[in-house]
């Protein structure tokens, strides 16, 4: 439909974006960078730290941007990253 959209959806704050928890098992990472490269929301970036394998594991830029598509979990060759949804008591 051609109309230009000018107003913020009224129910925008009703939809709670899932609260993600990203777990990085640093020392398991071999630094291939797939999780960083293919994250649809650019949640990750390479860190400066050097892990047990002498590579830079990913670090989280903005966890709130994560929508838990968990592609990083699926594409990691080293089982070094996974995402979970934060279960929070009083509806956060």
């Amino acid at each position, binding site marked *: 439909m051609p109309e230009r959209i000018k107003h913020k959806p009224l129910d925008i704050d009703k939809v709670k974006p899932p609260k993600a*928890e*990203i*777990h*990085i*098992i*640093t*020392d*398991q990472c*071999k*630094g*291939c*960078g*797939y999780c960083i*490269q*293919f994250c649809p929301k650019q949640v990750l970036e390479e860190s400066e730290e050097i892990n047990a*394998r002498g*590579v830079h*594991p990913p*670090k*989280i830029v903005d*966890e709130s941007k994560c929508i838990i598509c968990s*592609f990083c*979990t*699926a*594409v*990691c*060759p*080293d*089982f*070094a990253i*996974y995402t979970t949804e934060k279960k929070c008591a009083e509806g956060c």
Partner: protein
Amino acid sequence: MVEQVTHPLSKYLRADMMPHIWCPGCGNGIVLNCFVHALDELKTDLDKLVVVSGIGCIGRTAGYTNTDSFHTTHGRAIAFATGVKLANPELEVVIVSGDGDLFAIGGNHFIHAARRNIGVKVICANNFNYGMTGGQLGPTTPLESVTTTSPYGNIEHPFNLVHLAAAAGAIYVARWTTLHVRRLTQSIEKMMQKEGFCFIEVISPCPEIYGRYNKMRTGLEMMEWFKKASVVESFSDPAKAEITKEKIVVGEFVDIEKLSYEKLFHEKIAQINERSIQ
């Protein structure tokens, strides 16, 4: 947050075998990841699962899955698995091996298992070369690719694995790349639920060896190639499922029903015993 935690899929892996031997950016880890992910989705009874592999980097997979597993000799994974499956049809037998192992030294076993429709499931990580031995020419090496044994560019025509599998009689044939993790996982799930010879080819990056000789030094570069070149053409003619710099045809190519060898064999046994009772 960065922390030390256990991966949800770790229960499918032999903790004391981790970390695996594979190089940074190697696709084998993704194949393993998708495979155990599929097991998790299907809630597969691990007691009834046997993972068999042959020689080569990916051959180590058998050792990494927390199941009964057997790491056979060069090219013999399918033949060994045939024995397992026929001896105990209750078992789900999955072969995870490489293009060289399955289609060069083991090529004969592959086509005959497919022809007989033995109920084993084959996942082939195709990295276009013999990685473990340092990157030699293999049955899937693309024309003109440089390997340690084709320094002037490969002049051998590579196998089209999905076409071969379909022609040989496989009842399920698919090809994905390691970037298509979701579809790959779905395909594995689908395959595991079928009865008969199934085949999935996974185009897998080998940046350290194959990539190094072919201007794709990192896994990312190879994965970007997959992303750029892949076209999903499910149930198109596998004969036309090319793999070139420009185009990698992926998708499901065959999904049919056909009585498996073991089923037919046990039907025969039943008939014979009926006869003998009269």
